[in-house]
């Protein structure tokens, strides 16, 4: 009980000292007076100056983010007629903008610009207009992926400028921070778009997302090694987000049923051209014009190359690898390789010389 009283007394003494209250009652006590002196000394130790001058700016940032979050897809769906109006207005604005820009050559310069340049905001405006005018969610996701590639290219250019001494550490850090935030937002938007659509996930988009994540990983890892301090920190954050989005994309591909003997659809790890796609799996649809692995549809053309199989021999349940190319929003098969026959499900001997394989070009 004695200790309980002492605890409360000490607690009361501390509070009174911090509130600069009356301490007379304890000063007279022989037992408590030395404790009071110690408490006063502890309370009067000099503190470091905490830099709170940025709190107003942080408040603005918070409110900007809150406002951005409030313009959610749910709300835009409710006010679809507003969106239609916006699209029309956006279309007119875009036309005017493009006409004016082309005339004075600004648009070309804007598309080539990097963060930090006065003309750069125009590039972002053009991208926003393109997104607003996108015909459907799939096209929008494709555009977002394209813009994310732009951000990565810009990131590399900014880091290069910094290493050449053309850009200060402070400016570089500021630009990188903003670019990385844009990149993270774009990646999140694509992941959300591919996971919340009512219809089956679009494998072509998901595949491109995985490719984007691979490129992000390469670029960011390389940049992280070369960077220090806050720049490094920003890059590490972006790397973490990139890793998560990649895992989510792969998970969605697997969820779409594109699995062969516990092996997920294979994705080319190092495709430098973002328009190239590679997928492997069981053929689910075969027609004269196209073949599909699950929801991944590849159009056939005269340029399609066939390995281990003739075009007329393609049938459902065969396991194939397809290399595709995205042109004008459609995916064309450039090369189809038969991996396993449907009847035997035995792997074909890949060591056969080329002359013994069935290989033809349509």
């Amino acid at each position: 009980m004695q200790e309980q009283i002492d605890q409360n007394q000490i607690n009361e003494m501390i509070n009174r000292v911090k509130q600069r209250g009356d301490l007379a009652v304890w000063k007279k006590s022989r037992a408590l007076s030395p404790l009071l002196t110690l408490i006063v000394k502890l309370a009067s130790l000099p503190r470091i100056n905490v830099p709170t001058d940025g709190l107003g700016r942080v408040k603005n940032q918070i409110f900007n983010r809150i406002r951005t979050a409030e313009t959610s897809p749910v709300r835009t769906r409710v006010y679809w007629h507003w969106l239609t109006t916006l699209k029309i207005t956006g279309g007119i604005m875009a036309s005017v903008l493009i006409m004016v820009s082309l005339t004075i050559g600004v648009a070309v310069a804007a598309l080539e610009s990097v963060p930090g340049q006065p003309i750069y905001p125009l590039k972002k405006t053009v991208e926003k207009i393109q997104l607003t005018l996108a015909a459907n969610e799939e096209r929008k996701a494709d555009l977002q992926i394209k813009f994310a590639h732009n951000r990565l290219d810009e990131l590399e250019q900014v880091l290069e400028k910094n290493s050449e001494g053309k850009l200060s550490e402070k400016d570089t850090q500021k630009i990188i921070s903003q670019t990385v935030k844009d990149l993270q937002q774009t990646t999140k938007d694509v992941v959300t778009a591919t996971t919340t659509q009512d219809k089956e996930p679009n494998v072509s988009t998901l595949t491109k997302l995985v490719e984007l994540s691979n490129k992000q990983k390469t670029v960011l890892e390389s940049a992280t090694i070369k960077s220090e301090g806050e720049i490094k920190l920003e890059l590490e954050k972006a790397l973490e987000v990139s890793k998560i989005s990649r895992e989510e994309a792969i998970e969605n591909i697997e969820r779409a049923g594109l699995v062969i003997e516990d092996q997920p659809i294979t994705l080319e790890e190092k495709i430098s051209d973002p328009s190239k796609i590679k997928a492997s799996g069981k053929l689910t649809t075969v027609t004269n014009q196209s073949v599909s692995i699950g929801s991944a549809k590849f159009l056939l053309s005269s340029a399609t190359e066939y390995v281990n199989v003739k075009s007329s021999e393609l049938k459902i349940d065969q396991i194939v690898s397809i290399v595709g190319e995205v042109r004008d929003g459609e995916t064309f098969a450039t090369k189809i390789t038969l991996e396993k026959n449907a009847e035997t499900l035995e792997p074909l001997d890949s060591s056969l010389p080329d002359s013994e394989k069935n290989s033809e070009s349509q």
Partner: protein
Amino acid sequence: MTDEELKKALESAQSGNTSAFGIIYDNYSEKMFRFIFFRVGHKEVAEDILADTFVKAWQKINQVQSHSAIPSWLYQIAKNNIIDFYRVRKTTISLEEVASVLEDAATPIDELSLGFEQRKILKMLEQLPLEQQQVIQYKFFEDLTNQEIALIMNKTEGAVRVLQHRAIIKLKELLKRGPTS
């Protein structure tokens, strides 16, 4: 700000009023910033974490039952954000360090301005058990309440009072005894 004003601000913010949320920010941002700053030791990083903390707070504002719970709730969000920050940096900081991040706060004391007596007190403080040191730091150097300290240390307010009492008694003894080996 009075209790009544804070209560009204919370109710208004919970019905979607961002200005009311701004009042809550104005009331707690400095304290939260100090808490974060001492744990990450960098102004810009602390500002980013502060922003994340209040954005999350806005998103979950309806989870707060009472205005008196706001500080504890904000500390909880900030604490999680600080841990996330160190997790993201795990390539350079070990997981063991992540676990002890909240104990490894930077000292808020301006050591360059210390007098002889004050330096001695600080030196003696290092001889206290870790939890007693933490309570002194939170209470005296960061101006946290017992309720806030209890939340950060995962203890009851009673346990905080006991630690505080023991720390003061022990420190007095150490100072009386003088430096020991």
